[in-house]
């Protein structure tokens, strides 16, 4: 097996050998490696196939910008993870990874054929080709695309890992631990500011930490040595927290940031167990320093995507940090000084290399050093082609014309096994723009830079376009002093020798004798878009960068165009003849690098997914086999199946029992608002449609509440407990909104009213007993209470004790039966419930759930707000004009009841529906028409509630129908998928119109 590990470094522990599997084969690396460095050490460059043409692709970079080395980790159904960048994945014993996007395997695959038919796959290919015939999409195109382009596999079982969330507050957050970040963090922390420094890598130091060129020195030390000292220093600072392996995912307004901390991804399987895998930090920082650095740009030339072609600086990092050389005969192709650092490093380790420089000449100290070492430099030359299928083996270069637009002279062919490219540097302005910051374009070196720094956010270092070392330290110190209002002089005497210069020769699309149509000059490696595609999009009329991006899919892969956006923009600007700065950039959206769902969700999984509210009777319901329904956050018993009953049978039995003898409902979830104050009656007058002043103490009244637009908002029964004390009930789902709305009016419109509102929903448990035998059951529970109609009539309230515990008893009914609601302090709810059942045993007291409750009230034509209403129904639409006071001068929504729209007679109105076939049950939501033949069919309304009534032995329904009030007796049609159902419009009250049962 070849070994490309040629260098000993302090970051690789050669005493700790690590075995791992890649595409099923076992390899070895060392602790400290990433998967990418370990693969390169084994001579493996080819790591995948490109998305569209299935061209062989190799590792390009050493960081988050990596477009090609994307892999699937693990193979377990619950733990596998796609789209992991091999350049960021730290190696651990037992790691199993496989290349993505290369079915059936990386060395040979069917999609490779696309490479030969590529003239047929231009920009907008997917839009143009797979559009028709439409029927082909689902069965032919989509499966084909998915199979041949498979971008990784999602896990198919729940994630067993543990994730965590943490909320923190800091004075200063520093993002990125390179030279400028370390300086900023030190200055802040030494000035007594509580500071957090985060860096996505395993160790701090950025790219300076492995810098070893003696021409780049700080305080007479190698810059890397100087930086290591600084890191030792800051680790001692007590108010500085340093988090490595932590990357900022999103930067929101108000300096609220999300960071992902990796805790166990680098550990072997057995050490991961029972540990938190990742932690999401929710950071609030008073001030944020962005020092995210910059990433090297590739160059755009023909066949620039072969395995073995990497970014020049990455070759340097693999060598000096990981000890791995990417080849034995390396060519560096550059337009600036930074490739010379790589070249000199390689030379020192005995790796043969030469340089092709786009510039006509250059004369920095660094270049002189390279020249003196005898490194061959081809100035004013350009790479025009590369060769080699699975790995580069040679390339052609030509001389550039004076203006740089064409090539001149003869081709020179050079052999190599690796090509490093450097097109200059792109400042990582993602964080700045995510926070809402704008960008400026600097023409000198063609970079977008943060336009302005706000009072609470600043960019320093190369992400701010300050590229060379002298500038970075000097400018960082000045900016941070101003930004934090401090005067730190630690770096005043720091001496810097930097032999690099900043000049470069920027050409976005490099010239070539071959017509563009016959070249493959890749811009976006992951989505396979080329310079040709961009030009075609422009030819077809696309101008906006956002449109070109979507049409060509440039920058839309999982790397979000970290390497490609600038080139796409540059080529558009050059082609359209406009200034690049005037084009603007595409939007950088969070997350910066992909986040797992697990991290976002944290501990809120399984039973912690959502808040659950349970009544004090809940355990009894569970023990008695109840099926539950979610109503808001509440778990309400839906029905209680007995002896294997299905839902229909259970509901029919419960409904019948409630009317024949007695039923009991857990009504604890109804919203309860305690209203007190000398103006309580006046307040109720203003919020309900009906009058309240004359309600006697000890009496109850049903109320309808509207929105100011006149539409029904909520309803419920309110009881006058004493002169200035009421208890309001609301719908279960509406409770908190009603309270907010009432507070709104009290605090903002009527602050003069002496009224106090308190939510007491959870303070009381409620058992509602209904049916002809309910009075007998009540009598057993409360033997001293006079239950006669004279003393305790319908819509009245009494207090009594149940074994010394106070109870509030309301004689009110939502079923049309004689009915009592017993309220007791919540902690006694469970006992109350059991005592009721015990007392009701001899009367077959039957517990019923929400479904039966809905059925029973529908028999009586009582509405449910939110089921029979949808925010567009007035009281009149509901045929409830009787509850709207004509005498009251004002109440919420009154004025809207006679707007031109609300008095229209052809509004949708609530009606009853009876099916011609009494056994036919309508579907709730079904549309209602009068004529199925005319086209388009005129839709009149829809069914809102529908049940089979066991008490009437027929199907009943409520519906809203246009002009329904005038349609009683009329025939309508419910068209269903396979039949039309005939119905007749009826009254909304189906049972006991005379309300005899209330006093039965």
């Amino acid at each position: 097996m070849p070994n490309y590990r040629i260098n000993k470094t302090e970051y690789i522990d050669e005493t700790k050998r690590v075995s791992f599997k890649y595409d099923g084969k076992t390899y070895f690396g060392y602790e400290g490696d990433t998967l990418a460095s370990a693969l390169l050490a084994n001579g493996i460059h080819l790591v995948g196939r490109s998305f569209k043409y299935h061209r062989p692709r190799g590792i390009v970079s050493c960081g988050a910008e990596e477009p090609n080395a994307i892999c699937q980790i693990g193979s377990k159904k619950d733990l596998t993870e796609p789209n992991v960048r091999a350049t960021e994945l730290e190696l651990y014993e037992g790691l199993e990874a496989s290349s993505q996007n290369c079915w059936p395997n990386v060395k040979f695959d069917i999609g490779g054929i696309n490479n030969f038919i590529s003239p047929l796959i231009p920009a907008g290919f997917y839009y143009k080709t797979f559009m028709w015939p439409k029927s082909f999409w689902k069965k032919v195109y989509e499966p084909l695309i998915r199979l041949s382009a498979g971008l990784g596999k999602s896990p198919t079982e729940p994630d067993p890992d543990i994730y965590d969330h943490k909320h923190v507050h800091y004075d200063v957050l520093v993002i990125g631990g390179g030279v400028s970040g370390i300086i900023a963090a030190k200055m802040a922390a030494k000035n007594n500011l509580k500071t957090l420094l985060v860096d996505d890598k395993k160790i701090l130091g950025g790219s300076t930490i492995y810098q070893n060129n003696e021409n780049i020195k700080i305080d007479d030390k190698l810059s890397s040595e100087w930086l290591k000292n600084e890191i030792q220093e800051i680790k001692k600072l007590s108010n500085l927290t340093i988090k490595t392996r932590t990357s900022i995912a999103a930067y929101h307004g108000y300096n609220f940031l999300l960071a992902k901390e990796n805790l166990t991804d680098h550990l072997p399987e057995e050490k991961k167990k029972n540990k938190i895998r990742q932690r999401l930090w929710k950071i609030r920082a008073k001030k944020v320093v962005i020092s995210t650095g910059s990433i090297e740009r590739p160059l755009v030339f023909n066949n620039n995507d072969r395995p073995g072609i990497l970014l020049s600086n990455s070759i340097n990092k693999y060598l000096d940090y990981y000890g791995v050389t990417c080849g034995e005969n390396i060519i560096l192709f550059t337009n600036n000084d930074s490739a010379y650092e790589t070249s000199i490093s390689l030379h020192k380790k005995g790796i043969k290399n030469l340089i092709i420089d786009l510039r006509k000449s250059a004369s920095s100290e660094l270049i002189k050093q390279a020249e003196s070492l005898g490194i061959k430099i081809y100035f004013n030359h350009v790479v025009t082609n590369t060769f080699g299928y699975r790995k580069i083996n040679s390339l052609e270069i030509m001389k550039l014309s004076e203006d740089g637009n064409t090539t001149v002279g003869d081709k020179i062919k050079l052999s190599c096994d690796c090509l490093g490219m450097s097109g200059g540097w792109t400042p990582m302005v993602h964080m700045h723009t995510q926070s809402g910051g704008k960008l400026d374009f600097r023409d000198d070196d063609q970079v977008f830079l943060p336009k302005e720094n706000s009072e609470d956010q600043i960019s320093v270092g190369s992400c701010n376009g300050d590229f060379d070392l002298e500038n970075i330290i000097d400018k960082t110190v000045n900016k941070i002093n101003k930004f934090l209002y401090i005067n730190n002089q630690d770096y005043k005497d720091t001496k810097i020798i930097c032999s690099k210069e900043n000049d470069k020769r920027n050409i976005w699309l490099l010239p070539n004798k071959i017509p563009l149509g016959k070249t493959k000059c890749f811009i976006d490696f992951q989505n396979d878009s080329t310079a040709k595609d961009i030009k075609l999009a422009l030819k077809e009329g696309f101008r906006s960068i956002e449109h070109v991006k979507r049409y060509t899919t440039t920058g839309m892969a999982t790397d979000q165009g970290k390497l490609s956006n600038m080139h796409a923009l540059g080529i558009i600007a050059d082609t359209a003849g406009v200034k690049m700065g005037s084009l603007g950039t595409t939007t950088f959206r969070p997350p910066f690098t992909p986040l797992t769902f697990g991290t976002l969700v944290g501990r809120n999984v399984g039973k912690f997914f959502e808040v659950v509210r349970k009544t004090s009777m809940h355990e009894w319901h569970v023990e008695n086999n109840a099926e539950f329904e979610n109503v808001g956050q509440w778990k309400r018993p839906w029905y209680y199946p007995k002896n294997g009953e299905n839902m229909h049978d259970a509901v029919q039995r419960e409904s019948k029992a409630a009317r024949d003898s007695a039923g009991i409902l857990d009504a604890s979830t109804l919203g309860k608002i305690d209203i007190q104050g000398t103006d309580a009656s006046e307040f109720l007058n203003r919020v309900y449609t009906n009058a309240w002043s004359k309600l006697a103490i000890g009496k109850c009244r049903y109320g309808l509440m509207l929105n100011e637009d006149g539409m029904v908002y909520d309803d419920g029964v309110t009881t006058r407990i004493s002169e200035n004390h009421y208890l309001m009930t609301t719908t279960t789902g509406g409770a908190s909104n009603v309270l907010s709305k009432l507070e709104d009016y009290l605090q903002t419109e009527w602050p003069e009213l002496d009224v106090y509102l308190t939510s007491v929903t959870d303070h009381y448990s409620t058992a509602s007993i209904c049916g002809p035998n309910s009075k007998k059951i009540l009598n057993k529970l409360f033997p001293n209470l006079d239950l006669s109609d004279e003393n305790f009539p319908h819509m009245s309230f009494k207090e009594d004790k149940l074994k010394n515990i106070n109870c509030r008893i309301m004689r009110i009914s939502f079923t049309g039966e004689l009915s009592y609601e017993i309220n007791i302090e919540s902690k006694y709810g469970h006992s109350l419930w059991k005592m009721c059942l015990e007392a009701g045993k001899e009367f077959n007291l039957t517990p019923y759930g929400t479904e039966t409750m809905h059925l029973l009230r529908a028999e009586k034509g009582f509405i449910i707000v939110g089921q029979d209403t949808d925010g567009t129904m007035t009281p009149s639409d509901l045929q409830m004009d009787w509850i709207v006071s004509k005498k009251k001068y004002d109440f919420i929504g009154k004025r809207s009841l006679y707007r031109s729209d609300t008095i229209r007679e052809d509004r949708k109105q609530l009606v009853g529906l009876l099916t011609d076939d009494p056994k036919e049950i309508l579907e709730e939501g079904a549309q209602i028409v009068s004529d199925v033949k005319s086209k388009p069919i005129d839709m009149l309304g829809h069914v809102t509630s529908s049940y089979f009534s066991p008490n009437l032995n027929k199907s009943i329904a409520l519906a809203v129908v246009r002009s329904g009030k005038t349609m009683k007796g009329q025939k309508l049609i419910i068209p269903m998928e396979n039949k039309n159902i005939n119905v007749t419009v009826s009254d909304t009250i189906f049972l006991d119109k005379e309300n005899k049962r209330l006093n039965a």
Partner: protein
Amino acid sequence: MFLINCPFCGERDQSEFSSGGEAHIVRPKQPTELSDDEWAEYLFMRKNIKGIQFERWNHVHGCRKWFNVVRDTSNDKILSVYKMGEKPPVNYK
């Protein structure tokens, strides 16, 4: 995620609050005297400004108090916070 300085509780995360739309729209004292158009003006018409906007917020998961906020909708900066019934700060008019 805004940080909102509730005038009763101090700075809290936005998730504790709910927004109540434009501020200083007074409910007419005599709605019945209004024409449909005048009532609709009160009921439906809102400025929805890009720039400095006066709006109402409710500390719904806190003290339950309603209060007023001056916010620049173009950058979400909250410029001022004041209680119900208090006069809006004049420098933002």
